[in-house]
């Protein structure tokens, strides 16, 4: 990805130069692989395009539907925490190749998700990950200085709250269930969904 065309919605105290060189290398590698797969008839250009188009239709609205339901329906919340794949399937969201785990924020625990080894992300619920989630800066810093990183996102938590970082190093994908804010009693699911954003479901922000 070119440095000038990616999403710049984050604090910019880090240098992207290193990431960009790596991106350029893998972009060429990815393109070569794609051309070979097409040439050998393994997949068609049209199939690749269709898959990309489908990917681009997935947004954090999927995750927000799930979280809003968990806020209003205790039984659903229990199902989501017990077996998240089955719970999201109730909304028609199928995740055949990945295992989803829902992490509930509480007054005592704040969860935040990262993938230090690559950029594993619950794409079926949140869409494509933001550029900062894939940056080396976030991936390395949030593990050893989570409170400093959260502070840069405007999230300050008292010492009495446990900050729990989840490094998705294997076959699990993680979705944070943010805490339902006070003063929303009686709100319907539609209204609640509007409060639930991508960053609150990654865990870098609270509501």
């Amino acid at each position, binding site marked *: 990805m070119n440095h000038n065309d990616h999403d710049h919605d984050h604090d910019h105290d880090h240098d992207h130069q290193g990431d960009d060189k790596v991106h350029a290398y893998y972009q060429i590698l990815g393109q070569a692989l794609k051309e070979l797969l097409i040439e050998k008839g393994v997949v068609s250009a049209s199939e690749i395009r269709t898959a990309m188009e489908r990917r681009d239709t997935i947004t954090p609205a999927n995750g927000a539907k799930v979280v809003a339901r968990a806020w209003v329906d205790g039984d659903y919340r229990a199902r989501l925490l017990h077996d998240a794949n089955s719970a999201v399937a109730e909304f028609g969201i199928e995740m055949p190749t990945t295992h989803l785990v829902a992490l509930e924020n509480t007054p005592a625990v704040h969860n935040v998700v990262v993938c230090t080894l690559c950029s594993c992300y619950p794409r079926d619920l949140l869409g494509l990950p933001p550029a900062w989630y894939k940056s080396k800066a976030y991936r390395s810093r949030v593990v050893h200085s989570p409170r400093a990183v959260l502070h840069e996102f405007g999230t300050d938590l008292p010492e009495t709250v446990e900050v729990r*970082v989840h490094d998705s190093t294997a076959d699990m994908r993680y979705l944070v269930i943010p805490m339902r804010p006070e003063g929303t009693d009686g709100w319907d699911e539609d209204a609640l969904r509007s409060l639930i954003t991508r960053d609150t479901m990654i865990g870098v922000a609270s509501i």
Partner: protein
Amino acid sequence: MMTCSRYRSGDRVRVRDDYPIGHIRTPVYIRGCEGQVVRYLGHFGNPETLAFCLPTEPRELYKVQFRQVDVWPNYEGSLMDTVELDLYDHWLEGDHSQ
């Protein structure tokens, strides 16, 4: 499902302090650290052989919690803060609660 797994929730484990070459899903920063199993996640193909299209046997996967102060010598934050990783059983070593 829990009964046939090697570790149970609450077990103390130590991550192997080993540096083999290959497709390793155990981050370097956690090798040699001690933590506690919080959840058995099931059986999964071993990525170390899957990555090379070699025959693989299922490995047990665990969610393991570490205290941040046990992972980073100069951790700045609360003593309560934790980090959790998903680790395959062959990267975990027995009971180190002593």
